[in-house]
């Protein structure tokens, strides 16, 4: 039987399949359900210091089958209510808070609070691609120095996964900057900057106008970005693990990411209307490894790198 175990910043996980931030993870109840799946860890919805109600709807629309545009607007109850209500210590599955903020100081404050609340590791969202229409600046994850500053500030408190946006010319450069700044892992990709327009009404579809694309259609883009990150880290002599995501729908897609060098993966959009798919994916990965005769993930991780 295949052994799916993997470690992340010293943390032992049963398998490399994680729930992605923002999908079926915004309340303790739904996290409890997801923790019953065959899953290595659960990432929470992005948590900010103050509560955020989210953007006006529509917030999520399927643009082609299996591919979605969304602008939820990072709705969350805010740090205090989050820490009060979400138990980060006594679940059967590791829960990893995802943090979002505007400044390195705020990130450090969030990291401190979740560490005190028992989190062993946190993911930081450097990469929300749908700022309000008025926002014109770049995101932290679009600038290597800004990204490094945030990672440095947050990782004094607990190990940090730096989550990157694909909306950059050179994602490898950002990944290297984050790894050098102390990130324990790099995760990618967040959603692709996108909009959709209704031709009948001549207006944007989403309440927020701007949104991010995710789901089946973006998988070849996510694979390319993960490959770029793995290659850049290797070239810089860094062995920071990479968490791949973007369009994973089944076990084959997980295999694709691991073949490109990902240590772990996250699954998001495909669970819309089908949360149980998360377990199927993990089971399918074990089946695939058994069929191929692989004992451990290392037996095939990064196997396609030689082709590029």
């Amino acid at each position, binding site marked *: 039987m295949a052994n799916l175990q993997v470690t992340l910043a010293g943390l032992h996980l049963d398998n490399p399949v994680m729930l992605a931030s923002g999908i079926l993870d915004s309340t303790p*109840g739904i996290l409890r359900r997801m923790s019953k799946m065959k899953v290595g860890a659960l990432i929470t919805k992005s948590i900010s210091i103050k509560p955020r109600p989210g953007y006006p*709807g529509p*917030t999520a629309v399927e643009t082609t089958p299996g591919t979605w545009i969304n602008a939820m607007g990072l*709705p969350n109850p805010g740090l205090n*209510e989050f820490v009060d209500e979400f138990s980060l210590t006594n679940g059967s599955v590791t829960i990893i808070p995802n943090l979002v903020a505007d400044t390195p100081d705020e990130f450090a404050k969030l990291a401190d609070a979740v560490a005190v609340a028992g989190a062993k590791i946190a993911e930081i969202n450097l990469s929300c691609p749908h700022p309000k229409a008025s926002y014109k600046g770049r995101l932290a994850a679009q600038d290597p120095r800004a990204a490094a500053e945030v990672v440095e500030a947050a990782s004094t408190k607990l190990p940090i996964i730096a989550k990157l946006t694909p909306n950059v010319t050179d994602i490898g450069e950002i990944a290297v900057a984050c790894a050098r700044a102390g990130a324990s892992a790099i995760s990618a990709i967040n959603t692709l900057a996108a909009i959709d327009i209704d031709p009948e009404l001549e207006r944007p579809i989403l309440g927020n106008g701007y949104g991010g694309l995710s789901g089946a259609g973006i998988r070849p883009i996510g694979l390319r970005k993960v490959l770029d990150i793995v290659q850049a880290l290797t070239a810089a002599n860094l062995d920071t693990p990479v968490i791949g995501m973007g369009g994973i729908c089944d076990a084959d897609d997980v295999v694709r990411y691991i073949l490109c060098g990902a240590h772990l993966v996250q699954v998001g959009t495909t669970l819309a209307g089908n949360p149980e798919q998360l377990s199927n994916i993990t089971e399918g990965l074990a089946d695939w490894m058994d069929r191929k005769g692989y004992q451990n993930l290392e037996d095939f991780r990064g196997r396609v790198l030689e082709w590029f």
Partner: protein
Amino acid sequence: MRYPTFFEIVEITSTTSVGHSLWLKPNRAWPTQPVPGQFAMVWLPRPPKGYDLSVCSAIPMSIAGWDDGNVRITVKDLGLTSKALLACSPGDELGLIGPLGVGFSLDCKQPLLMGGGVGAPPLLYLAQMFAAKGIEPITLLGGASVSEIFHPHEFPGTVDIATDDGSAGHCGRVTELLEKYVPSRLYTCGPEPMLVSGLNWAVANSVPAELCLERYMACGVGLCGVCSLDEQLVCQDGPVFSSDDLINSAEFGRIAREAGGSVHVVQP
């Protein structure tokens, strides 16, 4: 594909204090007829003058009727978006994503329906579906006073009314009418305390029940999780739940969430 369909408001009827009914005609037909209890996410692509789009959202609305592809919704004035919906006129356009969620089951010989407030409209659609199948439903309608009772004359079958002030029917809670009946299933929709009483009665009398619930919905399509009730998603596993689903719930009748997921206590 969970992609919006745009509907033109063709008629606004039954402008009672419980809610205005909007009849909507799609620019692209829905592939299947909705099941009573299912809902749609509804929004105003261009709100009427005086209403600010930036504070309007997409909100869940039960399907309250179906006429050959045209959809009825019944809106109660509750807040910013519902006010804007109520200010619309025939010819205005709405966006709908739907039909969404799991509706009521229709395999029932002697259905008893119990509705309060804007819980009544989806039950009207349910009663009409039963009547179309040749089954005569009994419907209990409740409200504070007669003006709050949703269009009893539209319901096929027997209608039994209760008002808090006795201005129509039984003087008291609509749940007090339950004991008069021995149905094969109870179908109910309305304020959560009424649902709790209904569930208790159903369990005590070994009557299976289906309850249509409301929770704050940010996406409506099973992506975000904010509508969770314990481990269920109201937008996807519901909004209609069976008594079995709810009997051991830690949240039903106790807590609900607002935008962002903040908890508030359900008023008994």
